[in-house]
């Protein structure tokens, strides 16, 4: 079960926790599990978030597999110029 670190404002949606453990072999499954266990995070996911897996940041590629023991983070989806 991957440990997901949450950064910035996303922590508010999981009662301030720095990290949570949820099921998920892909980004999609991970986000689904997060939404089930922490319903308040669904709105943030809907607005757009980014997921980092071992340092690489994914925004829309929800098929991305999450390897065993990977470092996983949930981040703000930033804007660019």
């Amino acid at each position: 079960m991957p440990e997901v670190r949450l950064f910035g404002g996303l922590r508010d949606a999981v009662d301030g926790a720095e990290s949570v453990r949820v099921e998920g072999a892909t980004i999609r499954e991970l986000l689904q599990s997060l939404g089930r266990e922490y319903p308040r995070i669904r709105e943030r996911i809907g607005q757009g978030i980014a997921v980092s897996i071992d340092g690489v940041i994914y925004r829309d590629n929800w098929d991305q597999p999450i390897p065993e023991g990977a470092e996983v983070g949930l981040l703000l989806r930033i804007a660019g110029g």
Partner: protein
Amino acid sequence: MANDSKFTNQKFKLVGTRVMRPDGVDKVTGRARYGADASAPGQLVGAILRSPHAHATIRKIDTQKAEKLKGVKAVITSADLPDFTGGEGELYNVLENCMARGRALYDGHAVAAVAAVDAETARRALKLIKVDYKVLPHVTDVDLAIKPGAPVVQPGVKTKDKKAAPTNVANVTTYGHGDVEAGFGKADVIIEKSYKTEQVHQGYIEPHACLASVGPDGHGELWVTTQGPFAYRNWCATLLGMEMSQLKVTSSEIGGGFGGKTHVWIEPIALALSRKANRPVKLVMSREEVFRASGPTSPTSIDVRLGATRDGRIVAADAAMRYGNGAFPGIWGEVGAMAAWACYDIENVRSVGYEVLLNRPKVAAYRAPSAPMAAFAVESTVTLMAEALGMDPVEFRLKNAAREGTRASYGPTYGPIGIVPTLEAVKKHPHMRARLGKNQGRGVACGFWFNFGGQTCADLIIDVDGTVGLSVGTVDVGGARASLSLIAAEELGIPYEEVRCNIADTASLGHNDMTDGSRGTFSSGMATIFAARDAIEQLRVRAAKAWGIDVKNVSWKDGKAIAKGKRKSLTLKEIAEASPNTGGPISGHSQVVADGAGVSFASHICDVEVDPETGGTKVVRYTVVQDAGKAVHPDYVEGQFQGGAAQGIGWALNEEYVYGKDGRLQNPGFLDYRIPVCSDLPFIDTQILEIPNPNHPYGIRGVGETSIVPPLAAIANAVSDAAGVRMTHVPMSPPRVLAAIKASRAEKAPTG
């Protein structure tokens, strides 16, 4: 293979060469058509009435007289637009920014619009619209806006606790790790400093412009200067209740965007006017409107605390970052907080971003949005720390720089990154050994930007004569067509000249995210490679058919199909010519989510000369070192480095939104909002480093944005060195520098 984005480490024949851009001749002969260069039969001219007040309730808008004026074909206010009250907040905010609904939130906020037969009639009609305002108290300064009792910009906004009183702080977000206070406990030296940066505008030379046409059948077309035709299409259709497929958006040539053309401003208004008048409407912003009502970046106020041990190791870092968002909540303080400490490996680190609402225009992305101000505060303090420790500022940075495996302050752990190599290159650069003259000073600073990819689609067609048409959906902001043609030619193994790259409209290609986040060449480059690989698959099938052999025995090399036992190869041209009878047209297609954009780092060196009598600063030498991953077209990579540096120089020394006590913008023109001109700048030296991005077939990282991140700090460090006094307020305009010099002299002078 087809959609494998892993770095191939191949030897390039074309990528990395300096070819001529395919859109060049049109652009030097005046033929290229920008936003305001298109016209339609029966076209009307649109114009927008804007609030002269920084903050007011709109009690009534009387448009009757304007409507009766001969030649006026449509007048609209928010009453003519969908009302998203109670719906999704962001939709409401975006539309309210385009057209005020019951309240004006900043000087320049649109309150009504007209379409008339000509510009003069439209202007006269605006004068006939009577708006009954009740003026409210306003606030335009970041520090004043967060004080108790400050006028509240958005009464609906509350920080966190929904029961709390309204405030101008729309959100507070914290990043970092470790125990910051314990870290400071271990520090031998602690430096605390507060910084301020003024609001600046992207300053694209081409104002927002569009030509909109909507019929009563619900069909619509929009010609517009934008960084993202698909995003504009989606926004406009959603805001106006149109079906996305019924609205075709074509991006004109774009006369600069830098983030400012990633948001809709006048476009929904032009479409609404056209729909009401049932005629095409051309709507172009004046320069004054561009300044008052589109795109500036945040004004900021930042406190930094940095702790280090005597041997030069940073042990704790903390930043409180207040970013003005304008009249609508955004994410700018949070992005600043994420970027602030990204260059360094710090055990105990924290940054807190505050989104502060002001009676100023809605803040838009500006090239690596939020990062330059963060870097100004952080990199100024880092240099101060090096000075306090008696260390060379480059050595001190090297000692603390993030490396592969460092946990970034914003969360993830870095893969291979370029901060150390850029600093090593700075150390070796002859610029660092050049002698400084009288009143001159030198500064160094680092910068970071995330970069991102996103949804991308490309079509590659092989014409029967063997030439290739490439259609992409990311707008070409500065040479991308050349780079993408190079990539297509490289992958197919044909000459560059045989590829023609076109920017597709929204009806001709699948969705593409905008050209932002330095993603154009990274993402469309990836999609182009995949589309070319798709086309090669088909070329192999056709060759196999011609030879009557199994396709698995055919491979592709240097623009030709080859097969074991076949002495002759089949060229792309030969296969294309035969295509009508081997299965019809040949084309390659790709649709990808281009993720895995590599983070980008740069280090800049700057020499300035400060005139102690006037406080005027001249940049005398400037060097940019940046990691490009792979420079596809080095000329345009250098151009991005130079352009970003120049914008940063303007920001650091001159550019500033000046608001009067009445909350009105005092300098909405290029005369008083002075961007750097040719005689203000030296040649800007560039050094491209290529540390391949492992997540792109060609190793490409984005290059567009990072170059604007270090300049504020590099120049502040240089000016402080030259003037002998630490500058903490950007822009370092002559009056500010002079005041700082005088204050420092007064401080140093013996008293009594």
